[in-house]
């Protein structure tokens, strides 16, 4: 898996110790699998009006997740790989097969590529039965072979009982399974999944993912999985490439990219509610940490990064990673304890989003213009602490919850 990272791959920093451990673990377990099966190598440049897609990547057999907001170019990228859109420049190759190459004018038509593509809308043929849908791509096989393949894929995806049902009369989860089966039964060289599971509940989703993993254990093809959901990136837990405005922003394991993003855009995408301008105050290489000032008298201890004292950085902290205490906590391992005053509490679904005005180390009353932090609590925590606007609170933040980003 590690070998699959391209030159533009994400470089480790001293701060991301955990991340590198995760990566090592993953790469050692994935290497024997990655040795088999064909790799997808693609570099695609495509201009569509104002939008420019300019992406270069390699995908080994197994999942490669494309993560990004809508409009990032994820679907356009899949369309280029499938041949539904012809790139202006570049190359798309799976193993030894060249699908598209601008320099040699090679362009294999969609129907001849053998690329499996599951659309976001699934695009099941509504007038056909489940069996006819699944058998659609097998027209070139003799009757008996076709029936055998259909039977085995229906079993593998647990949809045998739907066989003769019209495709328009099955549920959402069943439709996803049928769409996957219809695509996989053709033995595609690459599998493209465009947010195929976004409409499903988590248990159904994870069952389908498990079936898909099981299938790919024997087939070993690259699977490009497009999503804009952070949860899905972590649930799949494999190599992720972050796209934004047609470009690759970062790539690595979800842990590397999503929990310790180096770029602020990725941080926003990954959901960092708090992003601060910071100045490096002091560096402690022996402790693997450094101290940064984020406001007047407000400091954060962060993981060490190669940075000069006095240099400017950005620090991201997830609202869910901050603890709240109503009295000054003692005997904690967390290095950052910041006093503050509750400014507002807002309930969003089952999460309470609080804005806390920070006082800093001198414990003066916060001025109007001082730093605010967003903190997420559960409803129970709010009620048991009896929090209300104006409450005196202390924010507790672990060193490794502070993610340092280059500006």
């Amino acid at each position, binding site marked *: 898996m590690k070998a699959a990272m391209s030159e533009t791959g994400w470089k480790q920093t001293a701060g991301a110790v955990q991340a590198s451990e995760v990566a090592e673990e993953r790469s050692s377990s994935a290497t024997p699998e990655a040795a088999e099966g064909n790799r997808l190598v693609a570099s695609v440049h495509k201009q569509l009006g104002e939008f420019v897609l300019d992406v270069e990547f390699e995908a080994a057999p197994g999942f490669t997740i494309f993560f990004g907001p809508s409009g990032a170019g994820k679907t356009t990228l899949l369309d280029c790989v499938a041949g539904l859109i012809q790139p202006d420049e570049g190359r798309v190759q799976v193993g030894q097969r060249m699908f598209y190459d601008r320099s040699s004018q090679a362009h294999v038509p969609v129907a001849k590529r053998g*690329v499996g593509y599951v659309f976001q809308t699934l695009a099941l*043929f509504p*007038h056909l039965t489940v069996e006819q849908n699944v058998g659609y791509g097998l027209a070139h096989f003799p009757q008996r072979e076709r029936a055998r393949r259909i039977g085995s894929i229906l079993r593998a995806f647990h949809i045998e009982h739907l066989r003769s049902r019209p495709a*328009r009369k099955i549920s959402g989860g069943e439709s996803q399974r049928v769409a996957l089966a219809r695509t996989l039964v053709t033995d595609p060289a690459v599998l493209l999944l465009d947010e195929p599971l976004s409409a499903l509940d988590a248990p159904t989703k994870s069952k389908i993912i498990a079936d898909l993993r099981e299938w790919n254990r024997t087939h070993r093809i690259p699977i490009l999985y497009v999503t804009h959901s952070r949860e899905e990136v972590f649930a799949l837990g494999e190599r992720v490439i972050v796209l934004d405005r047609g470009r690759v922003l970062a790539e690595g394991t979800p842990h590397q990219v999503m929990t310790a993003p180096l770029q602020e855009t990725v941080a926003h995408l990954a959901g960092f509610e708090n992003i601060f301008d910071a100045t490096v105050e002091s560096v402690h290489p022996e402790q693997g940490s450094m101290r940064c000032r984020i406001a007047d008298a407000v400091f954060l201890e962060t993981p060490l990064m190669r940075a000069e004292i006095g240099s400017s950085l950005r620090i991201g902290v997830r609202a869910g990673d901050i603890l709240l205490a109503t009295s000054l906590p003692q005997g904690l391992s967390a290095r950052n304890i910041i006093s503050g005053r509750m400014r507002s509490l807002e309930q969003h679904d089952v999460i309470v989003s609080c804005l806390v005005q920070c006082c800093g180390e001198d414990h003066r009353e916060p001025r109007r213009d001082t730093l605010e932090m967003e903190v997420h609590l559960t409803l129970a925590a709010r009620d048991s602490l009896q929090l209300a606007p104006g409450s005196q609170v202390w924010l507790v933040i672990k060193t490794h919850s502070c993610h340092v980003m280059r500006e």
Partner: protein
Amino acid sequence: MAINWQAFWLTLQLAVIVSTALFVIGLPIAYWVAFSRARWKFIVEAIVALPIVLPPTVLGFYVLVALGPRSPLGRWWIALTGHTLAFTFWGLVIGSILYSLPFAVQPFAASFAAVDRKLILASATLGASSLRTFFRVIAPLSIPGLITGAALSFAHTMGEFGVVLMVGGNIPGVTRTVSIDIYDRVQASDYSGANATALLLLGICFVLLALVYGTNRRAWAVKPVE
């Protein structure tokens, strides 16, 4: 109050032949109109739609000229068969095909274009050729449009008058259709005969259209899966 059954039989033959021919000719034209990205597509669309706005006499006149011995087509036909196409049943067929073309092509094209594009793309990624995609996906999902187009071209041919008169004249058993028969009777002050024939034509056209609209309402006028 006798109905001219010979005229009826002739009109029915004409309508069946014309709507069948339009089905065959109309499908590829409609496919092209629905899916082509050619810049000059609008020109073809305008030409196909012309018979809707053109007076039948104008269309009939040019068809007559084209079929006559002075035109290359007319000369070729005469060389082949020894007689002219004008004022024959087959001349009538050609005129009617042109006259009813938009009534077949437009519903066909509209229903093709309404097929969810993703279904067509999915078919391609599953290895199907354009032809297979057409017959397995596009056409089955366009059945209401196909029925509408066939029925409209049939009914429109049943009732046409101007083009028939210009191209076919009024030869009993050859080119005298129901509408011309009605006109003849009115000219001869045979109002009850005209009424009987007109009523029958009205009934047939109404039943046909009612069937079309009724059929298209049925559940299998399918929509893509959400």
